[in-house]
């Protein structure tokens, strides 16, 4: 695609128009399959891709299918757990790295977290399965035989790294004089953290939590390795359904989830807009400071 810019005459509007077209094309590209899925969720046939007629059967079937409901609920619970762990560990760690960058622990943590970020999922998957099994069976820590625990732990690793780096970036942008002033006024540390540090960190924490949640909800490869039957998460369920023939129920459940996501997004946007203007909303979405 050429940008269509010609020197001389109306170069600027031409280029701008080309960019606008490009932007809209990309958005259309991103939404094509989503639109298809939403449309086909009203397929009353047996197979998703073979359109037979319009109907709401798939929605009824999806919401009454115990496997589907349980898979979605497993995924949501695992994502919530992973996001919680990532936010707690990542916020503390990111804060520490920004305020105390030179330390030996700091350097070690930074290196390890970077390593977590560049390890392909397949490697984490094959590493975690034997590890969980040896913890759960050989060390008799039966906690690790629970599918939920395994998913939460496995998903929390990458997410912790993400939150850490987001929080660190945010803290590095803030000078520490406010905190120091509070310290000079003998504000107790916890109160100081709650009143000053946390509000500063909030957008990055929120962005991190959002990202951790999303990544966990979508994780297929690691989940397929560590999952225990009965805690099959949604992506793994969908993956096995791909092999067994996709039914419209899957599209229906996805459409429902999409709707819920949009609602959640609207709420987040509203809260952020009230708290700090639209800039913060954009920031929370993109994870910028």
């Amino acid at each position: 695609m050429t940008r269509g810019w010609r020197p001389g005459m109306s170069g600027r509007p031409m280029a701008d128009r080309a960019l606008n077209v490009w932007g809209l094309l990309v958005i259309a590209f991103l939404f094509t399959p989503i639109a298809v899925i939403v449309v086909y969720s009203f397929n009353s046939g047996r197979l998703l891709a073979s359109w037979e007629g319009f109907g709401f059967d798939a929605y009824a079937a999806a919401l009454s299918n115990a496997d589907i409901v349980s898979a979605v609920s497993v995924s949501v619970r695992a994502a919530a757990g992973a996001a919680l762990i990532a936010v707690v560990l990542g916020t503390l760690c990111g804060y520490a790295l920004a305020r105390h960058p030179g330390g030996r622990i700091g350097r070690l943590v930074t290196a390890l977290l970077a390593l977590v970020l560049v390890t392909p999922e397949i490697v984490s998957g094959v590493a975690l399965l034997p590890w969980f099994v040896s913890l759960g069976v050989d060390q008799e820590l039966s906690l690790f035989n629970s599918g939920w625990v395994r998913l939460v732990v496995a998903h929390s690793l990458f997410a912790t790294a993400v939150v850490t780096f987001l929080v660190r970036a945010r803290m590095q942008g803030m000078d520490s004089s406010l905190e120091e002033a509070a310290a000079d006024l003998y504000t107790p540390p916890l109160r100081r953290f709650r009143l000053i540090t946390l509000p500063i960190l909030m957008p990055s924490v929120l962005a991190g939590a959002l990202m951790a949640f999303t990544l966990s909800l979508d994780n297929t490869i690691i989940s397929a390795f560590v999952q225990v039957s009965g805690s099959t998460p949604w992506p793994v369920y969908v993956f096995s359904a791909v092999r067994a023939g996709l039914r419209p129920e899957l599209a229906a459940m996805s459409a429902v989830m999409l709707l819920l996501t949009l609602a959640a997004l609207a709420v987040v946007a509203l809260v952020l807009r009230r708290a700090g203007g639209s800039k913060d909303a954009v920031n929370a979405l993109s994870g910028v400071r």
Partner: protein
Amino acid sequence: MTSAHRGPRTAWRAAPAGLLATPALAWIALFFVAPVGLVFWYSLGRKPGLYQTHANDVLTLDRYREALGDTFMTSFAGTLRIGLAGTALCLAIGLPFAYWLAVKVRPHRRFVVLALVLVPFWTNFLIRTIGWQVVLSPEGFASRALQSLGVTDAPFSMLFTRGAVLLGVVYNYLPMMILPLYVALDRIDGSLREASKDLGANRWRTMAQVTLPLARPGIAAGLLLVFIPLMGDYVTAAVLGGARGTMVGQLVASQFQQAQNWALGSAMAVVLILVIAVTILATALAGAVCTWLLTRRRRSELAGLAEGSPA
């Protein structure tokens, strides 16, 4: 203000700050370092029998020799090609888009556009990919539409082709490219671009010498965020590409999920990490060399400009 008179309190404050990193460190050590270390350990062992997965009674590098055999290399070459082409395409599509979003879209609309980029990301990626499957399948509506328009008379299938593999990959990783690019471009002060234009640089020159160099960290982050997960992914490509989308990750997975050869699978996993690391380092090195060359040229240009007659 010297910090000397506040010494004790600073120390009191700094110590817990350092300690705050330890929970994360412990977590990573327990659930990342230890299991990956275990994989490394397995890779030095062997598979003793049909129904045993691994044994480390004899330490050997033979698994690495096996891992680097024909199967792995063939598969890896294909994966690398898809990885590089997919990453390059994401950059080519994502860069103009991110520029548009960061510079041309009015600020109060940015949230909406950004949300539009991310909303598909929140639908399960397999479902999204399956949406494409519906579009591309011979009974799907792309084929029907083309037939009714008279472009083709037989049902056609784009599924299970290399094009389909790339489509799936680009589609799924595009947001990972757009986000860091947007963040980087958004941070660039608009006045720098204005200044460049005021100094007589045309749009392309401004783009090449001001905007892109400043956006470099974002470009690097985007490339990494797409390339690394893509190299280990074997699901996305397979859904649209079938056998054409066989990735090296599939081979590693099959050693664990079918062959029960943890020793060989571990060796392959270690090789995969190493090769990805080397690719990244090589790219970073190439980038650094390019930057250095460009800067040198620009310096000499500037020097020439200073000596020569003013424009």
